[in-house]
C-alpha cells in the first residue's frame, strides 16, 4: 500500500486547502467561494457575508492548530509506547486536563484562555505521568492493554470527581458542559496564536525526532542497540506530547479519537516510517477535524453538533475495527 511520499503529502496539502475553503463556506449561512476570496482579500465589515467568513476564519485556524497538534501527538504516543490504541482521550490525558480545568474554574473562577491553558497543561502532565506510572508498575510493565485500561480507570475516577464538583456549583456546570464537548468556536486571534506557539514547539520537537521515534517503535532493546538514550528520548517526546495535548485541550476542550484515527490512516497510506507518518499527520489531522467541524454545523440545524462529538462519532468505529483486527494491531 506504500505510495510516493512527496505525492501523498502534496495531495494532503491540496485536500487541506479545499477543506479550509469548505470550512469557510459552509454553515448556517452558506457563502460562495468567490465571496470567501473577496472577504479574505478585502475585508469589509459592513457586509454580513464577510463577517461570517471572518468568524469562520478564526475557527478554521483553531481547527488547523488543534487538529495538527492532536494527530502529531497521537502518532508520537503510538510510537513511543508501542501502543496502537494510544490517544489523548484513551490514555487519560484529556481527563487529567479536564479535571484541572474544572478545579480551576470551580476554585479560582478561571476563564481566560491563558489560565485554562496553564491548568490544562498541568492536568495533562499529571494525567500522563499517573497513567504511565500506574501502568508500568506490576509484573509486565506498561503493555498497550494495561495503558488503555489505566487510562479508562483514571477517566472514570476523575469523571466522578468532576461530576461531584460541578454538581455543587451551577455556574461551573454551565461553563463546563459547553467546554466539555470540544468546540472550535468563539476564540480570538490572540488566544489562538498564543496556544499555537506552544503547539509549534511540540510539533517541531517531534518532527525533528522522528528517527528516534522509529527506533523506539522497534522496542527498547532495539532502540538501545541503535544508540538511542531511551529514557531521555521518552522524556523529550513525552514533554512534546503534553505540550501539544494540553494546548489543544485549552483551546478546544477535550477532543477524543482524532489522535488515534489519523496516525493509523497515515500508516495505511505510507507504511510504518514515522519520518513519513508525522508530516502527514500534521496535514491530515486538520483535514479530519475541519471536516468534522463543518459537518457538525450542518448535520442538525439549527443547532450545532460540537466537534468533539463528531470526532467520537467517526473515531469509535475505527477504534473498534482496530481491536477486531487484532493481528494488525498486535495487542
Amino acid at each position: 500500500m506504500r505510495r510516493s511520499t512527496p505525492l501523498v503529502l502534496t495531495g494532503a496539502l491540496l485536500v487541506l486547502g479545499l477543506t479550509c475553503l469548505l470550512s469557510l463556506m459552509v454553515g448556517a449561512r452558506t457563502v460562495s467561494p468567490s465571496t470567501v476570496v473577496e472577504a479574505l482579500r478585502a475585508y469589509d465589515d459592513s457586509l454580513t457575508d464577510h463577517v461570517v467568513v471572518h468568524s469562520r476564519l478564526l475557527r478554521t485556524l483553531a481547527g488547523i492548530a488543534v487538529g495538527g497538534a492532536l494527530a502529531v501527538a497521537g502518532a508520537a504516543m503510538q510510537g513511543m509506547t508501542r501502543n496502537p490504541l494510544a490517544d489523548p482521550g484513551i490514555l487519560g490525558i484529556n481527563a487529567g486536563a479536564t479535571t484541572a480545568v474544572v478545579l480551576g474554574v470551580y476554585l479560582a473562577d478561571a476563564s481566560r484562555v491563558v489560565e485554562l491553558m496553564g491548568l490544562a497543561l498541568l492536568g495533562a502532565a499529571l494525567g500522563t505521568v499517573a497513567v504511565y506510572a500506574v501502568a508500568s508498575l506490576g509484573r509486565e510493565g506498561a503493555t498497550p492493554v494495561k495503558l488503555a485500561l489505566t487510562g479508562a480507570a483514571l477517566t472514570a475516577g476523575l469523571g466522578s470527581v468532576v461530576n461531584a464538583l460541578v454538581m455543587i456549583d451551577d455556574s461551573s456546570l454551565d461553563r463546563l458542559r459547553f467546554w466539555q464537548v470540544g468546540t472550535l468556536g468563539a476564540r480570538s486571534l490572540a488566544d489562538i496564536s498564543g496556544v499555537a506557539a506552544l503547539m509549534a514547539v511540540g510539533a517541531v520537537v517531534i518532527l525533528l525526532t522522528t528517527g528516534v521515534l522509529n527506533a523506539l517503535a522497534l522496542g527498547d532493546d532495539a532502540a538501545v542497540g541503535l544508540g538511542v538514550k531511551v529514557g531521555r528520548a521518552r522524556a523529550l517526546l513525552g514533554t512534546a506530547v503534553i505540550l501539544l495535548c494540553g494546548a489543544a485541550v485549552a483551546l478546544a476542550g477535550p477532543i477524543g479519537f482524532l489522535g488515534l484515527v489519523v496516525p493509523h490512516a497515515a500508516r495505511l497510506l505510507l507504511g510504518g516510517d514515522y519520518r513519513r507518518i508525522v508530516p502527514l499527520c500534521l496535514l491530515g489531522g486538520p483535514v479530519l477535524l475541519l471536516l468534522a467541524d463543518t459537518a457538525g454545523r450542518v448535520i442538525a440545524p439549527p443547532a450545532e453538533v460540537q466537534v468533539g462529538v463528531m470526532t467520537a462519532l467517526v473515531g469509535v468505529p475505527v477504534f473498534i475495527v482496530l481491536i477486531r483486527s487484532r493481528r494488525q494491531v498486535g495487542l
Partner: protein
Amino acid sequence: MSAAAAPASRARTPRSRRALLVATAAGPLLLALIAVRVLVGTPMVPLDLAVRALSGEDIPGYSFIVMDLRLPTAVVALLAGVAFGLSGTVFQTLLRNPLASPDVIGVTLGSSAGAVIAMAFFQADGRTLFWCALLGGLATAALLLAVAGMGGPGSSGGADNRFVLVGIGVAAALGALISYLLTRLSLQSAGDALHWMIGSLSSSTWDRAAVLAGALVVLIPVLALLVTRLRILQLGDDTATSLGLPVPRTRVALILVAVTLSALTVAVTGPLSFVAFLAGPIAQRLAGRPSFPLAAAVGAVIVLLADIAGQNLFGGTELPAGVVTGALGAPFLMWMLIRTPTSGSGR
C-alpha cells in the same frame, strides 16, 4: 452458591472455613448497617421509637421518617448493592478480567445515556426514565456483544480483553453523546441529569424497592442455575464444549443476566460508580476465593456505608452515595491495576 459447588473433600479446608465465617458475619453486619441508616441522621431516631414505628404504631414525626424515608432508602441501598455486586462479579469471572465491570465497559453509561435522552427529549421522569435507562443499558450490551463477536464461533480466544476494550471505546462514545445532550438541556435540567448520573439513593421509595426486589427474586435463581455452567466455562472453552456445554449461548445468557441486573439497578438509583467493580475482588480477598453470595453482601455493605457516610460525615451538605463510591473507587481501581497480572496481554 460457591460453597455448595465446592467438592465435599475440600469442604473443611481453612479457606472454606474462612468463607463460612465471613458469610456468617455478613448478615449481622448488614442488619447493623441498616439499623444505623435508619437511626442516625438529622434528626436522630431513638431505638425504642424506631421499633415502635416498625411495629406499626403511629408516632408523630418519627413514623414518617422511619417508614417512608429512611427504611426504604436502606432497603434500596441493600438491594442495589446486591445487584451491582452480582452483576460485576459475573462480568469479571466470565471475562477473566477484574476490570470488566459494567462501569468500565460502558453498560452503566449506556443506561445513563438512555436516561439523559429521556430527560432531553421527553422531559421524562419516574417510570419513563426507568424504562429508558433499562433499555439504554441493554442496548449497549447488545451492541457490545455484536461488535466484540462474543456470540460467534471461535470467539473465545482473546474475547475477554477484546470485549473490555470495545467496551472502553463504546463508553467513550457514550460519554461524548451524554456531554452533547447536556449542552442541549436547560441549565436546570442539565443539573438534574448530572445529579441523576452521579447516583443517589435520596429519592428511594417503597415502589422502587419493590421493583428491585422483584427483579432480584427472578434473576438470582436464574443466575444460580447459570453459575454452575460458569464454573465449567472457566475450565476453558474446549473442555466445556466436550462436556456438552453450549459455550456461546451460555456466555450470552450470563451477560444478559448480568446486564439486566446492573441496568435495572442503574434505572432505580443511577449509576453508583465502582460498586459493581469493587464488590467481587473484595469478596475474593475476604473469602480467599471467588464467591457470588459474598460479592452480593459486599456490594450491599459498600452502598450502605457510602450512603451513611454521604449523609452524615460532611456536616450540613448531604453528598449522594455515588460521589462517595466514586471518590473511593478510583484509587482502589488503580491499586487493582498495579496488582493484577491478568490485566496485561490477554491470557
